[in-house]
């Protein structure tokens, strides 16, 4: 009888408790504390926006965006991310809404240490947690604003609580089901400390594509500060300058790309286009011919650019 009770208790304990085997990242943080991280951080300057109804997504966004000086109302964000039919907000829409306010939306790598590193340099992090079960999930967004590596606790603004202190192991248990998902909203002139070049270029290209050209240009400049040789950032800088009708800046950026990446057909193609737009057709022709000679998956586009330049030259010579 007693054994059965004990078994029942142990099963339920295993199901519900935050034992260390369920929090592998916390365990490794405890075993090997990252030397580069300060022990205590709390970003008290992040405003608290209490959650109403199921609006944790909009609340979390309001906190991180307003912390960086964006003046965005909760109502605006509800309109931008809340999905009535799902009674919640999707991760994709959380990212998209950040772009609409001119910030770079960047999902962090699924690493606890990375989240702490971003907080340590002053960036609050939005995390996705599951407070239900795997077979009946109850998803929730909150904002992590601090941590304590002596007590192994994280400090969060969540729901109606402006300051919720939770042991890291417990937090990891609810954070893990969503694939350790987290995101930051970066002002365009800053690059997350844990960002990698390709993923961040993807995030900035998404900002550019969302029509935030000026902010994207600033973000490409910031990228070039971190990764001076980044082809994506050089092309992006050129393309945003071109979209802003700054042909001189566009030419500079594309030239830099052709020098650093002489095998990039895109760099030569875009340089050719900028030169052609300035009426420098001989130079444009050389660049376009070189782009075509490089072949690759962009060949149909580079050939189209080349034939357009040739057509322009033909017209010119007839005139």
């Amino acid at each position, binding site marked *: 009888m007693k054994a059965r009770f004990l078994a029942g208790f142990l099963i339920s304990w295993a199901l519900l408790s935050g034992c260390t085997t369920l929090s592998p990242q916390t365990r490794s943080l405890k075993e090997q504390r990252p030397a580069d991280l300060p022990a205590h951080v709390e970003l008290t300057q992040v405003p608290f926006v209490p959650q109403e109804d199921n609006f944790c997504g909009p609340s979390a966004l309001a906190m991180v965006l307003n912390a960086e000086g964006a003046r965005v109302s909760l109502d605006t964000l509800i309109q931008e991310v809340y*999905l009535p039919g799902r009674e919640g907000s999707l991760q994709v829409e959380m990212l*998209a809404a950040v772009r609409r306010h001119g910030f770079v939306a960047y999902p962090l790598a699924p690493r606890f240490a990375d989240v702490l590193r971003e907080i340590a340099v002053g960036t609050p992090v939005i995390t*996705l947690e599951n407070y239900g079960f795997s077979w009946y999930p109850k998803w929730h967004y909150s904002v992590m604003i601090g941590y304590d590596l002596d007590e192994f606790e994280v400090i969060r603004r969540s729901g109606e609580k402006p300051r919720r202190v939770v042991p890291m192991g417990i937090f990891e248990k609810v954070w893990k089901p969503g694939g350790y998902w987290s995101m930051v909203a970066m002002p365009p002139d800053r690059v997350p400390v844990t960002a990698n070049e390709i993923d961040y270029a993807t995030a900035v290209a998404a900002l550019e594509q969302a029509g935030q050209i000026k902010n994207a240009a600033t973000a490409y400049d910031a990228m070039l500060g971190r990764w001076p040789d980044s082809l*994506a950032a050089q092309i992006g800088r050129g393309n945003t300058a071109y979209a802003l009708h700054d042909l001189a800046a566009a030419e500079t950026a594309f030239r830099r790309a052709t020098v650093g990446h002489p095998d990039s057909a895109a760099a030569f193609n875009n340089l050719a286009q900028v030169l052609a737009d300035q009426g420098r057709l001989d130079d444009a022709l050389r660049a376009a011919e070189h782009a075509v000679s490089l072949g690759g998956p962009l060949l149909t586009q580079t050939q189209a650019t080349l034939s357009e330049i040739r057509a322009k030259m033909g017209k010119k010579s007839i005139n």
Partner: protein
Amino acid sequence: MKSFYKLVSQLLIASMVLVPFATQAGMIGTDQVVASAAAQANRDKVVQFVSRADVAKQLETLGVKAGDAQARVAAMTQEEINTVASKIDTLPAGASDSGWWWAAGVLVVALIIWYAYK
């Protein structure tokens, strides 16, 4: 007259076949450059393109106003559009951390103990 109609319809057919494959001369987008860098690892992955209008419609079905839905999809990347389109009903939708699950948890514990103890 008949031959005129024939000509028009032939032109229409030709334009419908050719237009989707027409290549835009000019600038190559940053997204293409990034995508080709990111795709180097999985070059053969087939990308299925879903239109933004389809996803906007799905958002409307779930209660978003038409104008809002269009603005919302406009800020998404093609990859995000693809993700949402196929899984809009099952993707995590962050909502609330309300305490009902504690009650459910306690119930589960009680049931297991009762089952083991009886």
